[in-house]
């Protein structure tokens, strides 16, 4: 009999022990098999209710969670900012209290403020899953990237993974660096100094030279250049950024021949990644999509009782 999964919320990768990350990935592998069945639906979470509360636009993550909920037969309700009272100035607390009255088993939340899911966890009884908060964490993205890596490379331990780009604004970079370190990989962070936050060395070794980051890498994670968050003058131009940090076919050659390239999407072609690379043979974007659903099914399953914790 294995030990219960001890977490009720998934607020980030940081609180997870390596063994629980592995449990999530192993569970996700099983879930991936379900996605290949003729009838992609199992009754596991019948009668459980899940609310998708998205305060930021998101197509990928939200549809992935919704798909996961459907496959597991959970009842789900999606609230996006454009259609809720958030537009009318309702506070997060009031929204939380209103949702609470519906007694959902789980709330999946995307929010522009770091720590918003922690706030929700303090004020709601439901399990809270962080679907991306500010520049803090995006745990399910890191899990799906890890699942993709493991699937393509057969392991995670010892892999050199370059994480390149807008690190300062990236929750994906933070969650991935934490996860890869916990599982014994060797992440290296790379970007121009204005896009590397103070103290970023706590996550992983850092370089400002992309060639050094890519050299001999097993995988390259390109971060989206978050132009909409560039409130300060971080860079002179996206053109110069592409010259210095864009992933080109030439640069990819410095990595291992079987390198894979991950991108959380949506991509800025011609900025952080050249089109030939994005469409090239090393791209694993489609695997990432399937793995995204599988990982989210695993999260739903383990947090909603399959892990044997308090349900």
């Amino acid at each position: 009999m294995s030990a219960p999964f001890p977490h009720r919320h998934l607020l980030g990768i940081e609180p997870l022990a390596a063994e629980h990350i592995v449990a999530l990935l192993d569970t996700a592998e099983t879930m991936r098999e379900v996605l290949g069945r003729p009838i992609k639906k199992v009754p596991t979470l019948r009668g459980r209710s899940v609310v998708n509360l998205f305060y930021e636009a998101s197509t990928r993550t939200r549809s992935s969670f919704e798909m996961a909920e459907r496959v597991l037969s959970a009842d789900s309700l999606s609230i996006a900012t454009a259609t809720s009272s958030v537009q009318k100035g309702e506070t997060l607390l009031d929204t939380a209290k209103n949702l609470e009255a519906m007694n959902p088993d789980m709330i999946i939340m995307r929010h522009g403020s770091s720590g918003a899911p922690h706030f929700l966890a303090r004020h709601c009884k439901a399990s809270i899953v962080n679907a991306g908060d500010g520049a803090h964490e995006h745990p399910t993205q890191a899990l799906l990237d890890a699942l993709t890596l493991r699937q393509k490379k057969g392991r995670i331990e010892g892999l050199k993974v370059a994480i390149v780009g807008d690190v300062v604004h990236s929750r994906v970079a933070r969650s991935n660096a934490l996860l890869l370190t916990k599982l014994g990989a060797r992440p290296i962070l790379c970007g121009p100094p204005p896009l590397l936050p103070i103290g970023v060395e706590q996550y992983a070794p850092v370089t400002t030279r992309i060639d050094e980051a890519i050299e001999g890498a097993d995988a390259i994670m390109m971060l989206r250049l978050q132009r909409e968050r560039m409130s300060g003058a971080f860079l002179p131009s996206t053109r110069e950024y592409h010259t210095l940090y864009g992933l080109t076919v030439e640069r990819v050659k410095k990595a291992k021949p079987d390198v894979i390239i991950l991108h959380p999407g949506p991509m800025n072609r011609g900025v952080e990644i050249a089109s030939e690379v994005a469409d090239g043979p090393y791209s694993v974007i489609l695997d990432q999509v399937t793995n995204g659903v599988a990982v989210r099914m695993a999260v739903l399953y383990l947090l909603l009782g399959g892990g044997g914790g308090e349900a």
Partner: protein
Amino acid sequence: MTPPRGFRERLCLMDAARLDRTLSRMAAEICERHPDTARLLLVGVHTRGVPLAERLAARLPARPVVGSLDITLYRDDLTTIAPHPLTRGTAIPVAIDGRVVIVVDDVLFTGRTVRAALDELVDFGRPARIELAVLCDRGHRELPIRADYVGETVTTAREEIVEVRLSAQDGEESVWLLEPGPAPVAPPQPAPAPELPKAPQLVVHRPAAGKAPVKKAPAAKKAARPARPAARKKTAPRRKR
């Protein structure tokens, strides 16, 4: 192999030789009913049902297709405290439409596992027929389910456990009836016998995962009896209370 916490061995229902004979007889029964065994699909239910399906398949004249079923996602008791790790997976290697499918499991108890297995199977297609083969039917059904092939029918108390041990998983070949109670550290004291009888021989083994209803053991009032093989089919002694 050690029984689950709070349980101890009461009775050996099958030893290795008997288990082997039983499987051969079950294979013969299957063959009798379905002579074209190559067309069959044997689906073992995780965990013990999978190797049992393999063994039955090996005893059939023409080897059928063998699959495995992890019914965890179809359970109806997800919220109980015990974790249901989900790492074994379901593998149905062929289309099941129009086929005869034989679900194989080690112990038939409440019937809930079989119910879940049936639900899962029909999500894969529409078989011509589904049958059920179990090594041991221990009674206490909670659903109207019966087996088509039964290795052994055993009378048990509700709180007891029937544990099937297979060499690949457990390092031994046997079927045991376990009863609630502490493991016998000291040998029982029969009457006022001056000499201590020899402690029952216990084999070292792991618990079988996920099969038994794990309940708090009521305080044991009886000492473990020395193990002995079950005498005859349907006559395993019921424990007196």
